[in-house]
């Protein structure tokens, strides 16, 4: 159902809510299209008129300046008009008032919603209930999915490693609460990575994590062997108070990525992090700023990938609006 909801009758992207159910071909098309937009960043004019006259609303029920900024920039570079709204969740805790917000914006002839919400499934809910011509992009929902982040990570990996089929990728840290990890795992499996390995203490792994298509390790030193791509996840401070971990220092000792531990992975391994980084908690500064880190590359790639996804999703809504097929 989630995949049907995302694709129109011709199998083209309509909403972008999760990577589940999307084909390897479609993910590759997103990466290829992003490549086109990435080329623009060196140009004097960083803007194209593809989405001129379109209105995109960033609906952020959960604050995230970084993600919101890259979505704003991406929309601006496509010449769309962008409006960002930070909405306190307390005001929309009920489905009805959330829908009221959506209906009000629809009445202002919006073409796309970019939705960030603290509850899993919120973007699906909005996509299901919004007017048929509107596209919805999930900018992170609860612990469920963060598909644009995962795609920019895939873009960065492909830039450096080209072929996914030989790659062993380790995702390290708080998998349990991470929507980024869930989307990354789906993307890597769809794109055919040789192995996706999650490394974390049991308290930070969801039940039956293997069912996501990963191998599991509870030991960083063992887990990093033969790894080509290391993805570190952000550790939220509140994990200590909820008894998931004893202390930051103990976590760093076991699962923090240091220069010495990095040597266990393949010599040409790259280090990624969706940001913002907790230096000295999940990653040592020397590694984060070191030659194997591609963390800043991820940030710049974020704009091109989001431009590609917005343009692709908008293309189907524009068409269905013309033909009235939707």
């Amino acid at each position, binding site marked *: 159902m989630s995949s049907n909801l995302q694709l129109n009758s011709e199998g083209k992207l309509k909403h972008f809510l999760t990577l589940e159910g999307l084909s390897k071909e479609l993910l590759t098309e997103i990466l290829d299209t992003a490549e086109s937009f990435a080329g623009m960043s060196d140009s004097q004019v960083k803007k194209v008129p593809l989405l001129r006259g379109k209105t995109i609303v960033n609906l952020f029920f959960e604050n995230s300046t970084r993600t919101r900024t890259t979505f704003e920039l991406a929309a601006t570079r496509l010449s769309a008009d962008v409006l960002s709204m930070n909405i306190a969740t307390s005001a929309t805790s009920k489905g009805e008032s959330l829908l009221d917000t959506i209906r009000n914006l629809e009445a202002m002839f919006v073409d796309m919603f970019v939705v960030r919400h603290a509850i899993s499934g919120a973007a699906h809910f909005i996509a299901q209930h919004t007017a048929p011509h509107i596209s919805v992009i999930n900018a992170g929902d609860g612990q469920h999915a963060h598909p644009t982040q995962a795609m920019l990570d895939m873009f960065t990996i492909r830039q450096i490693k080209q072929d996914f089929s030989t790659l062993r990728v380790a995702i390290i840290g708080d998998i349990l609460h991470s929507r980024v990890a*869930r989307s990354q795992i789906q993307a890597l499996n769809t794109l055919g990575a040789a192995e996706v390995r999650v490394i974390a203490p049991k308290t930070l792994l969801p*039940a039956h994590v293997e069912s996501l298509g990963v191998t599991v390790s509870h030991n960083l030193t063992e887990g990093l062997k033969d790894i080509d791509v290391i993805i570190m996840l952000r550790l939220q401070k509140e994990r200590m108070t909820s008894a998931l971990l004893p202390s930051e220092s103990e976590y760093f000792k076991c699962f923090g990525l240091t220069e010495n531990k990095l040597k266990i992975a393949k010599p040409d391994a790259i280090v990624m992090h969706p940001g913002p980084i907790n230096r000295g908690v999940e990653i040592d500064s020397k590694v984060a700023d070191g030659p194997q880190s591609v963390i800043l590359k991820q940030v710049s790639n974020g704009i091109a990938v989001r431009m590609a996804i917005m343009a692709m999703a908008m293309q189907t809504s524009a068409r269905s609006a013309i033909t009235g097929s939707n």
Partner: protein
Amino acid sequence: MSQIHIQHGRIIDPANNIDRVGSVYIADGKIVSVTQEPAGFSPDTVIDADNQVVCPGFIDLSTRLREPGQSRKATFKSETAAAASAGVTTMCLQPDTVPVIDTAAVAELVKDLAEKSGYQQIYPIAALTRKLEGVELSSMLSLKQAGCIAVGNASQPVQNLLILRRAMEYAASHDLLLIFRPNDYWLGNKGCAHEGAFATRYGLPGIPEAAETIALSHCLELAELTGCRVHFGQISCKRAVIKIHQAKKYGLNVSADVAIHQLHLTENDIQPFDSSYHVLPPLRTDADKDALRQGLASGTLDAICSDHQPHDMDAKLGAFPETEAGISSLETLLPLMLRLVAQQKITLPQGIAALSTNPARILRLNSGALTPGFNADVCVFNPEFSWQIDADSWQSQGLNTPFWGQTMTGKVTHTLQAGKLIYCQGE
């Protein structure tokens, strides 16, 4: 007074070990005789039950009619009509109304509402603790005298075991049955789905089986300590079935039921983020479903309940974890039981016993059987009749069922409650 003759039906009365084609004779609201025509019987109503099943009216151990307090979701009027059309002649009402059924006044209000709805046999379950908060005991004796049939925790966990112990001791002192849904507050961790592959994939807060089995184990220990009679409601997992089996074998005076949807649906059936599948305890795994079915067949689980929870649209509108749990399930109770029979998981008499004879025994009611002298609570149903769940066929105000739009087999044609025809198909 009126005399009713139900003829030519297949009479299934598990309590009296009857399964044969024949007649049921009713006079003055009571069963007079089965098969044997009483002398001087001159019926003013004859119900022809050719090719139909005639059985005791169903007794539902867990329903919510949403009054008092939540009439936007459902009313006694709408839900008693749904119950009548589903062959249900007796309902136990969970105490989590607004206000909670924790005083005699609220219990009497419920009885009043029942009387006005023209549907007689509604039994409130009294809250075990005040406001179901698990802190102070409710006035159980007054509640019993006001008509409450048992005490219970609805779906609220009792966090403090000392309070649970005292509540059980007090209930035992007044010979009150405890209807307990086992659910550990801390392990439940405000989850909304079974802690398994589905919850992991969709990033939903999970509820492990241990939340049920640990609370169940605590309560079993306290049942032995206090001597309180306990009925466990809405069992959802295999390990709980095993624990109940062991407890019964050991000799504890306990019983258990399972909600009808747990016998058919698992986490694999959930459409992503479809709130109509949001139910507590959550839909679990295939292994759990199989164990629940076996538990029912073997008698470890005594009864099937509807766990009827009608909701308004808004309650189910939102991202999955934000929506309210529960299924509107009175009207699918019979067809889904018949589906188990069709799948040869249980026999038809077993299914009927789980819906009538056994709940009556648990509640110590003189009903759930076609025994002469008992109230004439009778359900006549056509086991082959196919119908679709849609706005035309549905009676409950709550449209929240994952079975919406599906075709069901088996439909009640007549429901008699104490000899009064409260439902007749097509009327």
